[in-house]
């Protein structure tokens, strides 16, 4: 066992592992590129829908149902289905990943908008703001912490799922796992796994840091409460309860 560990560190510190198109920096860049691409598309889809549902309250039941059903879809099944139907290439797996990333973003957005204090919204409206101004100048800033929680969950999920994408002949850090599996090269698999785990933790830390530095705690009267809600969204449980509380 200890030999596996030393072999893994030998693999990780081997200059060969760090150079070329199969090197760690290149794989890392691919991994981040796929993740970024997925997040851009998923955000472009989920946030407008979430804002609409959160602001108008229309289609809430449908949004909850769709988000729940999408969550139950097996990642791997969706990936293989898209590849079989649309062929190998960059976009089919990216679309599969987008479908998996939309639910947390959507849930975070509408839960965030819906959780904004009604008094704030009414006050904004009473001041003569148009509906769009109410949405973007009153609701959106107040909902941001919760929305960001959903975004964090989405990013982490995308990073995790991108490692599976290597199975269908794309790049990313997951390549080391599947190449290692084929070659029975366990140190390479373990090294790749450690890199993926490290990447996920590092990205999460960066996201938390961004939240601390750039996101205002909000004009919300209970900054700790909204913070709490943002954290809770990492696990969809309380997000579900928030939604239930809203409908009752």
């Amino acid at each position, binding site marked *: 066992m200890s030999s596996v560990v030393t072999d893994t560190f030998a693999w990780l510190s081997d200059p060969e592992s760090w150079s070329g198109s199969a090197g760690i920096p290149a794989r890392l860049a691919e991994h981040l590129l796929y993740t970024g691409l997925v997040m851009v598309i998923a955000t472009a889809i989920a946030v407008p829908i979430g804002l609409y549902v959160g602001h108008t309250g229309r289609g809430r039941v449908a949004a909850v149902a769709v988000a729940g059903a999408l969550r139950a879809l097996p990642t791997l099944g969706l990936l*293989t289905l898209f590849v079989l139907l649309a062929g190998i290439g960059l976009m089919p797996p990216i679309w599969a990943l987008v479908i998996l990333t939309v639910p947390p973003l959507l849930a975070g957005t509408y839960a965030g908008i819906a959780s904004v204090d009604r008094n704030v919204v009414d006050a904004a409206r009473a001041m003569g703001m148009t509906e769009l101004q109410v949405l973007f100048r009153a609701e959106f800033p107040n909902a941001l912490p919760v929305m960001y929680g959903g975004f964090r969950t989405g990013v982490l999920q995308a990073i995790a799922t991108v*490692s599976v994408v290597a199975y269908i002949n794309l790049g990313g850090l997951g390549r080391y796992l599947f190449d290692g599996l084929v070659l029975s090269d366990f140190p390479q698999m373990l090294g790749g796994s450690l890199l993926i785990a490290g990447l996920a933790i590092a990205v999460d830390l960066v996201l938390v840091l961004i939240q601390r530095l750039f996101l205002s705690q909000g004009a919300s009267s209970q900054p700790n409460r909204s913070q709490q809600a943002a954290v809770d969204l990492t*696990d969809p449980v309380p997000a579900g*309860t928030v939604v239930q509380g809203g409908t009752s």
Partner: protein
Amino acid sequence: MEWFLANSEQVFSLAGQHLVLAVLPMVFGVLIAVPLAQFARQNRGLRSVVLTASSLLYTIPSLALFIILPTILGTRILDPVNVVVALTIYAVALLVRATLDAFDSVDEDLRQAAVAMGFKPLARFLQIDLPLSLPVLFAGLRVVSVSNISLVSVAALLGIGNLGMLFTSGLQRDFVTEVVVGIIAILILALLMDAVLVLLERLLTPWTRVAAATGTGTGADSGAGQGKTGPAAAALRLSDAQTTGGAS
């Protein structure tokens, strides 16, 4: 459909393996998370350690964890034990947070009333805190169940038997039907598990229905009940349950 009928035996046996791999971690997860949450509630230091560790572990992608664990546990990479341990870690990470929140939300007056009535700590925990946090615990379990059933299929990439095998073999043989059957089977499994959990929750928390029934009976009461937040309403229900329990 034809393919499914011809191979139904294989699909059912894979579904059985799938179910075992998904359910065992849920059982272990509850058995570990509930006592852990109780200890964490009494000890501030332990609490922050538990919360940090759980969010950190929850961040690690499953595929990476499936490969890292054998090195730590000394198991073979194909050992289903790795999957069970990995999913147990996720279950504990999610449930411990939810359970802590639920314990925190138990009305302090109720707890002190129990002490005044002569409840010993263990009895108080088992008869007051635990029953009252069941709804939150079950909400957490339902999330764990859905995500477990989806995550188990990822283990098929490493060659561990479950419904995910239908995806890998479907992809290798360029056979869409097999993948579709796999996705449907997994969705059905997730739905069935969810139904079982809902049923179990109904059986274990009969007072929630009693409260609902009495609530509709008197108009004024139901209005007041709706104004209450979840935990407070639950506390009210428990006080009802307690009095009936004491009378019998």
